[in-house]
């Protein structure tokens, strides 16, 4: 969805607040005062954030889709632009284009079990879908979140995960690759949790987000449990530049990740998924 007339023109937003999430990840909340810019987004969509004079990066929106007037982004500081964004303070400007792209089909899961599998920073693009699912909880069967990270220090939104874990209407399993002895959740890769949880495979919608290799193993585990291919959704990451399907940087076979994605039903991209040449 392109919310304004010139999708290549960044709109000036200012940082309302900044929160450190982990040693390399932070969340910024932007005030959206520009009337030409849509304050509304759908879970799974992303914005292009422009650090003036440095560059632009695609960042998923990680806030609540029903809270307007603010845009929340959770960012891993790993390159020139994101390291620069990490240094911004309240009141400083950021250029914003978007929201762009497809979204998690939360309503498609109505009447079904909803299984969310996230790895690393992949929890950020899924958080709006979790908020939406919790806001409409009665429409789903089981609501299950499986989340994996490298270590306890890398777990994103830990307090929120603990809050969700306490809910009786949601199952949350956390796992890390490496832990010291005060960690009382799971140890191992997140995909190993899939066979351990109970859900109705035929009638489950699975939303998966994380590094591509994690999604590959997640798909294998979901297919082993006989979740239908067309019930599995992935959020793909590619080198997005224009965000409107013109430049071709993010091409995945015949698809543009920025325009046709980033959220895809697995069966639509299965022929191009895990192809070395693409």
């Amino acid at each position, binding site marked *: 969805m392109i919310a304004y007339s010139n999708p290549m023109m960044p709109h000036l937003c200012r940082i309302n607040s900044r929160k450190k999430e982990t040693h390399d990840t932070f969340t910024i909340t932007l005030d959206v005062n520009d009337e030409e810019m849509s304050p509304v987004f759908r879970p799974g969509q992303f914005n292009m954030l422009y650090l003036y004079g440095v560059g632009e990066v695609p960042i998923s929106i990680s806030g609540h889709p029903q809270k307007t007037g603010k845009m929340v982004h959770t960012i891993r500081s790993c390159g020139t632009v994101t390291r620069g964004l990490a240094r911004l303070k309240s009141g400083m400007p950021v250029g914003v284009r978007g929201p762009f792209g497809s979204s998690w089909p939360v309503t498609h899961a109505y009447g079904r079990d909803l299984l969310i599998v996230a790895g690393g920073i992949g929890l950020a693009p899924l958080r709006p879908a979790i908020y939406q699912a919790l806001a409409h909880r009665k429409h789903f069967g089981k609501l299950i979140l499986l989340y994996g990270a*490298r270590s306890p220090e890398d777990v994103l939104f830990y307090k929120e995960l603990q809050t969700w874990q306490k809910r009786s209407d949601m199952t949350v399993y956390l796992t890390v690759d490496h832990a010291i*002895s005060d960690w009382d959740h799971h140890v191992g890769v997140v995909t190993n949790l899939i066979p351990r949880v109970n859900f109705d495979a035929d009638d489950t919608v699975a939303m998966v987000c994380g590094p591509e*290799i994690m999604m590959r193993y997640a798909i294998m585990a979901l297919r082993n449990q006989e979740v239908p291919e067309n019930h599995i959704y992935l959020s793909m990451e590619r080198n997005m530049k224009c965000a409107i399907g013109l430049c071709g940087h993010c091409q995945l076979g015949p698809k543009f990740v920025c325009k046709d994605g980033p959220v895809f039903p697995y069966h639509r991209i299965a022929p191009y998924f895990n192809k070395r040449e693409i």
Partner: protein
Amino acid sequence: MENLEKILATHSFFADLSPKHLETVAGCAKNVRFEPGEFIFKEGEAADQFYLIRYGQVSVDSHIPSRGDATIDMVHAGEVLGWSWLFPPYRWHFDAKAVTLTRAIALDGKCIRRKKDEDHELGYRLMSFFASIMQDMLQATRMRLVDMYSQPTNV
């Protein structure tokens, strides 16, 4: 004993065993319970039992001087703890500690080893079970080696 046989039969690990083999295995089994924080076994000790976890959570750890206990794995209800009892030198390679109150069935390793040597069909079934568990563990370990949560570092 009949009660233990029934419990063993409900555990996924032994669900496919014949009644005769269940009875044989049950002869080597007993119920055990561990309080949170209690060691079930320690690295280097004789591995003379293995456990079917019925309730609770067990961490498999390795103590690293100056860093504390690194958790290698978590074993949960429905899963099996320990295979060092199966191969010489029958010594535990890691520590196992109850994270929460844990109830389990402990199986005497010496007893099972003797019975599987006497009854090769039982031995084959047991080795197949453990080979399957080892394959799962090996694949999980390999996936962890891939470091699947790392991200590109250029944006």
